[in-house]
């Protein structure tokens, strides 16, 4: 008995009972399709979040006043004032591995122009902030060093603020808008970034010199934060070390000795990297969860193959007896049923792959979920389904092969 004949026999048996064959494959089809769709959703979410994090500014390092809050301890107002302008200056001058650095002082308030007004947030920064947050000035220009030195009342508006203040589409450059009744001359408009994955409007902001926010709006001497960019992603850790050393020195924090513990940092440094890792592990968990639910349905599909193969073997007992009486050996019968199982699961797997890809795109269209189909998820689910089909096909096939031809022929 050669393999070609075995395939012919198996194909004939499959086509002789199309509905049963389809139902057998259905479990596998659904299993494979759901594995691919689920993994596509998991991977898609992961990628889109990672992309958004890197869009927020790659290699970003954020310095906040106050001790690390991850322990959940609330901080008092004094602690929130530990970050000074001098800290910013010494980090700027002394820290290595940084490509950009900007102080950050924010204030919320109302913008008014003519009859239009809109609530928004004003960010006191310097020009490096554009690099750090990957922003671009679309119209006009960014404010100058001179503006920072003089705490000039100039601003660069985000698209949303422009749209709200100038609904008729007038050119905002050179116009004077008011923020909490302080007049600001618009010198530039930022290129739109749209919404991020958490649904936040990234264009609802205005950038002004940090000196202006400190002196004219908030009247404070401390900073709410310092944002930096490391030269490369790999340099982030070294940059953080440098910054920590500089800030500890500036703040006169004592190092630990044999008898005393080191004073804790009164500032917190977080990197983009850290945030991304946190997000990644959450998304990985989600992907594993989705994947294992789908994997279970794949196994259930395999049990379906076994069940229907089992029925099929009993149903075809007489046929098996006849085949044996005309000279089929046990191995021929075994191979026939195994090949049937393999063909069904491979065909089911192929249909499942297409269905899964289709389902993933349908979900993308209907629910606007980000998807990403990885080739290994296709290969894996396909391989697993073939294995499952043959694995679960084995037992009924073995049962068929071990039948006594006389008994089988007499079977009614």
């Amino acid at each position: 008995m050669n393999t070609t004949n075995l395939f012919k026999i198996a194909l004939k048996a499959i086509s002789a009972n199309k509905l049963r064959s389809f139902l057998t494959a259905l479990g596998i089809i659904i299993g494979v399709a759901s594995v691919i769709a689920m993994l596509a959703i998991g991977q898609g979410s992961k990628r889109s979040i990672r992309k958004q994090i890197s869009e927020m500014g790659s290699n970003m390092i954020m310095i906040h006043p106050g001790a690390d809050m991850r322990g959940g301890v609330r901080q008092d107002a004094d602690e929130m004032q530990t970050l000074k302008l001098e800290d910013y200056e010494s980090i700027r001058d002394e820290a290595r591995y940084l490509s950009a650095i900007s102080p950050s002082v924010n204030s919320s308030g109302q913008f008014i122009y003519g009859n239009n007004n809109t609530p928004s947030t004003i960010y006191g920064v310097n020009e490096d902030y554009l690099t750090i947050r990957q922003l671009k000035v679309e119209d006009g220009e960014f404010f100058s060093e001179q503006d920072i030195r003089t705490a000039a009342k100039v601003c660069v508006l985000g698209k949303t603020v422009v749209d709200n203040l100038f609904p008729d589409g007038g050119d905002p450059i050179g116009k004077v808008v008011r923020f909490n009744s302080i007049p600001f001359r618009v010198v530039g408009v930022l290129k739109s970034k749209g919404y991020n994955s958490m649904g936040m409007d990234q264009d609802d902001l205005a950038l002004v010199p940090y000196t202006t926010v400190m002196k004219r709006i908030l009247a404070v001497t401390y900073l709410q934060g310092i944002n930096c960019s490391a030269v490369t992603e790999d340099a982030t850790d070294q940059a953080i070390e440098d910054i920590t050393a500089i800030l500890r020195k500036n703040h006169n924090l004592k190092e630990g000795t044999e008898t005393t513990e080191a004073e804790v940092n009164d500032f917190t440094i977080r990197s983009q990297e850290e945030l991304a890792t946190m997000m990644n592990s959450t998304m990985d968990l989600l992907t594993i969860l989705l994947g294992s639910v789908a994997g279970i349905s794949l196994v259930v599909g395999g049990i379906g193959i076994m069940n229907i193969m089992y029925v099929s073997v009993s149903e075809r007992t007489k046929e098996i007896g006849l085949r044996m009486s005309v000279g089929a050996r046990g191995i021929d019968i075994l191979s026939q049923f195994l090949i049937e199982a393999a063909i069904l699961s491979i065909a089911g797997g192929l249909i499942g792959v297409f269905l899964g890809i289709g389902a993933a795109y349908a979900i993308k269209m209907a629910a606007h979920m980000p998807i990403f189909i990885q080739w290994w998820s296709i290969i894996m689910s396909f391989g697993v389904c073939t294995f499952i089909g043959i694995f679960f096909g084995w037992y009924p096939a073995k049962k068929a092969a071990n039948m006594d031809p006389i008994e089988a022929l007499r079977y009614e």
Partner: protein
Amino acid sequence: MEENIHRKTVIELQNVKRNFTVGDEVVHALRGISFKIYEGEFVTIMGTSGSGKSTLLNQLGCLDTPTSGEYILDGVSVRTMKRRERAVLRNRKIGFVFQNYNLLPKTTAVENVELPLMYNSAVSAKERRERAIQALEMVGLGDRLYHKSNQMSGGQMQRVAIARALVNNPAVLLADEATGNLDTRTSFEILVLFQQLHAMGRTIIFVTHNPEIARYSSRNIMLRDGQIREDTENHDILSAAEALAKIPVPQDD
């Protein structure tokens, strides 16, 4: 039986016994059967129900092995053969015809006939098809090659089964109640076919309930209770074709 000395022995049974154990009871289906069957014989095996005819035929067809005794088919001893070897032997040397035809459902006549050759890798697809068509032409179904098994009458299905039994050019053709499901006229048509095959030199063993059929064969073995009661040569073989001609053709009404 002087003449038999010069003829080739196809089948030889030496004191073959077959016991079945049912619960703690032992059924002696065959109680020591010995005979030789020579090439070109048309042997009918008769006996009452339960006398062991089917059990004997299963031994001859290598579907089963004796509890004791020796069975030599075409020069090889079957008793000590493995399952796998017996399958190959059935494929090359045996042609089986069953009472209930046992055709593959939803499968064409020619594909049914090809089946034994599917399990013989020495036969190419082309040769297989040619031999199947040849066998179907021999049984008078040259015009029904591509009819499915469920589109045929009982007589036609039995012809397909006979073609399938012939396609591997077997040493012996075994039939168990091959006419049992057919009406008188169709039974005789099948009998005519068997006589033609006999005339062509085929060795045939035909199990039947019908004593009349024995008169159309060359030898008759009577079984009773698992033993041979009578083994007679028939020197006055009747012609099935003549008998068929005398049966009135059913009138259309």
